[in-house]
């Protein structure tokens, strides 16, 4: 036992649960930790898988940044790891460069920011914050993780095969991705990519269906939809987006599989390649792009909404203030959810799509900026006249808001089809989405880990290391992505192995070097987090029950909640989750399970009117409980 365990906390193992007679027997190790149906274990499985993939995705970006920042460097030192992917001149192989870019995108978008973020926090927080013993279906939930795991195994295998993983960009546009002759990565690597994504989608759907069902059906007594923490609203809407959009990607992938293996022509038309005119006619390459972005754009919000939900919770808790404009926050998330489905073609302004469609999508795209702006203003107003405690989670949340703004505003330029002609597929786009969706969502995820680590593992992470981690990462991310705006305005195209062929793109070797150095530093800083994370699981300071003095229900569970979450009966909810610094209250927070009848000194007028009904409810509950025991 480490010395920091000196602080002895109250009750560690109140495991048994009167309401779950089946849970009395001890579970085997395999059922408890591997094929577990407990949402908390599944959440940790997603989290650790997500961290694993984030390290791989991050290292990939360091590799291709080496090429872009130091094109003359001799990478012979990497030969033991990369083997034939280092050319005889000691450079990165061109095919491998594209494979790295592709896999960086795929891994970060799907395996880290979808599975790692939604998978972790939807699983962990939905039952705990709505007062449920577990997900609606623990079994489906377990399947959801194991489908994801299978998908991970397939994707990881594709990294190791001789021809390398898929290399057509994470958007895998056909015909490049459909024709093995067109690119080294379009062979087996692409097949594995498609198989992996099919498994991934199944896993994601099983998870999402569970989240939606659980939120709708299993909220504890008194927890109306308008009393839900914003985290739950975010996870709920994210799951709905996932259910509606992932199947479209599935069909897109399926048709691509047909084109690749069964001779169909969904996406192929009039192609001459490798000395041969293919028989395929009548397909449309644009069809794939429409199908892909019908998922691809909502995917941005699948990644972002959970991060915004987490931020809402953390900002409010640590500013010791109610989140400003709760209903407006819910409203803007609803608006974003809806509009996210009808903006997809803004990725396609210059693909040859009908220009009239371009006008329509431009209009819709700029509309989505309004609810996004409202969210940013509301975060800032929540900070105003707060009493702000800078936990690492709070710092990452503020960082998220900063990225959400700095990356979001450039979307206004890109969403304008006339301006997009020049900016499309340049580094301006790379800067935009890495800030607004990549870094923002990543910061949301890190904030969530720092904030809920005590509930996950019963111990605290070290906050000093957290501060160092935050400041290096926050400043470093700006050093990586802000210069990309200049490079993009100068016209540099994406996914270029080297720019020196062009006079127009021969400037900015200095900025590219700066970006690469910053990327290496940021990557290295993540190991501070990884150390902190794993070290604290075993040796961290023991966590108090409610370390952040927070209002939501998860903090009413024991330090290490067992399967079933609450040892006794599930707490009822009597108020919204943001009663921070309420005038007249004794403390600067009132948890959701504290009845209004006990806080008459701080109640608002309309809350006092509810007391009579509330007392009736409590009476009735007591009555039920007595009956239950008698039975």
């Amino acid at each position, binding site marked *: 036992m480490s*010395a920091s365990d000196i602080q002895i906390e109250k009750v560690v193992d109140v495991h048994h649960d009167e309401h779950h007679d089946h849970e009395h027997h001890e579970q085997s190790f395999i059922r408890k930790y591997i094929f577990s149906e407990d949402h908390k274990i599944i959440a940790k499985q997603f989290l650790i898988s997500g961290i694993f993939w984030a390290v791989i995705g991050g290292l990939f970006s360091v590799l291709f940044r080496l090429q872009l920042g130091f094109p003359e460097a001799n990478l012979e030192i990497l030969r*033991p790891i990369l083997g034939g992917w280092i050319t005889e001149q000691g450079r990165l192989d061109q095919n491998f*460069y594209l494979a790295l870019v592709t896999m960086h995108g795929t891994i970060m978008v799907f395996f880290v920011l979808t599975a790692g973020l939604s998978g972790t926090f939807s699983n962990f927080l939905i039952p705990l914050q709505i007062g449920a013993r577990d997900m609606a279906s623990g079994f489906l939930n377990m399947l959801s993780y194991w489908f994801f795991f299978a998908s991970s195994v397939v994707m990881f295998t594709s990294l190791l095969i001789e021809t390398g993983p898929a290399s057509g960009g994470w958007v895998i*546009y056909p*015909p*490049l991705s459909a*024709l093995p002759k*067109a690119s080294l990565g379009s062979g087996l690597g692409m097949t594995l990519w498609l198989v992996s994504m099919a498994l991934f989608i199944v896993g994601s759907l099983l998870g999402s269906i569970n989240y939606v069902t659980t939120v709708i059906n299993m909220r504890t007594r008194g927890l109306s939809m308008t009393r839900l923490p914003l985290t739950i609203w975010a996870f709920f809407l994210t799951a709905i987006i996932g259910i509606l959009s992932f199947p479209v990607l599935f069909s897109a992938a399926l048709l691509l599989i047909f084109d690749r293996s069964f001779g169909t022509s969904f996406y192929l*038309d*009039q*192609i*001459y*390649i490798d000395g041969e005119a293919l028989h395929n*006619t009548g397909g449309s*390459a644009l069809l794939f792009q429409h199908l892909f972005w019908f998922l691809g754009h909502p995917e941005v919000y699948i990644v972002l909404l959970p991060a915004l939900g987490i931020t809402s919770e953390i900002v409010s808790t640590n500013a010791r*203030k109610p*989140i400003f*404009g*709760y209903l407006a926050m819910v409203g803007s998330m609803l608006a974003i959810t809806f509009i996210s489905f009808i903006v997809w073609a803004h990725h396609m302004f*210059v693909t*040859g799509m009908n*220009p009239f469609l*371009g*006008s329509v999508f431009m209009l819709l795209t*700029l509309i989505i900026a*309004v609810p996004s*702006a*409202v969210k940013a203003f*509301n975060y800032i107003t929540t*900070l*105003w006249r*707060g009493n702000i*405690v*800078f936990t690492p989670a709070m710092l990452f949340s*503020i960082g998220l808001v*900063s990225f959400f703004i700095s990356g979001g*505003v450039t979307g*206004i*330029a890109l969403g*304008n*089809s*006339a301006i997009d*002609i*020049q*900016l499309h*597929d340049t580094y301006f786009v790379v800067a935009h989405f890495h800030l607004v969706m990549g870094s923002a969502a990543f910061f949301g995820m890190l904030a969530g880990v720092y904030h809920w680590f005590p509930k996950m593992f019963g111990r605290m992470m070290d*906050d000093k290391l957290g*501060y160092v981690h935050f400041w290096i990462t926050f*400043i470093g991310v700006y050093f990586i992505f802000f210069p990309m705006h*200049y490079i993009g305005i100068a016209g540099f195209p994406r*996914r270029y*192995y080297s*720019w020196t*062929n062009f*006079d*127009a793109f021969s400037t900015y070797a200095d900025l590219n070097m700066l970006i690469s150095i910053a990327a290496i530093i940021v990557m290295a800083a993540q190991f501070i987090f990884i*150390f902190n994370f794993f070290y604290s699981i075993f040796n961290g300071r023991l966590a108090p029950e409610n370390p952040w003095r927070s209002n939501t229900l998860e903090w009413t569970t024991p330090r290490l909640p067992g399967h079933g979450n609450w040892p006794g009966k599930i707490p009822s909810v009597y108020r919204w989750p*943001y009663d921070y*610094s309420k005038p007249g209250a004794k403390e*600067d927070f009132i948890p959701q399970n504290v009845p209004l009848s006990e806080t008459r000194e701080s109640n608002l007028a309309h809350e006092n009117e509810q007391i009579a009904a509330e007392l009736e409810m409590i009476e009735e509950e007591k009555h039920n409980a007595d009956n239950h025991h008698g039975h």
Partner: protein
Amino acid sequence: MTGLLITAGIILTIALFALVYRILALVNIAKGAHEKRVGYSNTVNAFMFILFFFVGFGAFFWYSGKAEYLPAPSSEHGIVTDDLFWTTTAIITVAFFLTHCLLFFFPFIFRFKEERKAYWYPDNTKLEILWTVIPGIVMAILVITGLIEWNKITAPAPKDSVQFEIVGKQFNWMVRYPGKDNKLGKYDYTKIDGTNQLGMDFASDKANFDDFMPGEIHIPKGKAVELKIRARDVLHSVYMPHFRVKMDAVPGMPTTFWFVPTKTTAEMRKELKNDKFNYEMACTEVCGNGHFSMRMIIVVDEPEAFNQWVTEQEPWAKKNQDYISGLKLKDVNLTELLK
């Protein structure tokens, strides 16, 4: 040996960090630092936001002034879209700056103090309507100005525009001009082979016979130029950064883009004081391992020089007479067509 040293170095560094970390953790426990609600770091973190604000925005404004951008656009629509871009950028920079003033100063001003209580302020409908409506209006203005220009750019090309064809393949561009008859001959992808790279269908369209395929693009200044874009194998994208032109090349689906060049190559060379300046065309849709090497030079001539250049070009069919005679076309007077 080097590898061993590096590994040993890394392990030692990690061990050192772990030791330092452990000592600090124990010191903190001994001091009871965790008993207090916030420590000294709260002030440090709050101050860091202010520091980052000044250094960050300082660097931003300083560098934006000295950064190298592309030269001013050399096309009519490019001047307008660049104006739109810089106007939008000015607006979003103001929004970025103002929101960050608040976002970075509030944490400092309202950092935790034991004696203070946060202000209970759950909502304010007027304020929320205000900041929904203002972005709404700004967006509406930007949308309308953008739409007007977008509709102009994507309107059908003027009747008298200079047409030519750009075809993307792995990994270079090919161009074809219509020749004397001003008509691009029909093509058929099944007719493509090692010689007839564009699949010109000589049997069904005689307009092919005078088409020529130069090694670089020539366009006349001040006249509308219409690009007929297609791809042979995978997606490519025609990108002419100096003209602010971009359009995908899609197998099976011809696309088009038209624009009016405003400065000749010679004028640009003079303006930039660079004798070696050339307009360039690149590919911006990932198309395989040679994606980054699809360069083609564009030359903008005065209209007279352009016409002169056109007359000097030799038709492809004339250069490849063996190929044409190999086609064994009936009812075709080759000598007449190749004159």
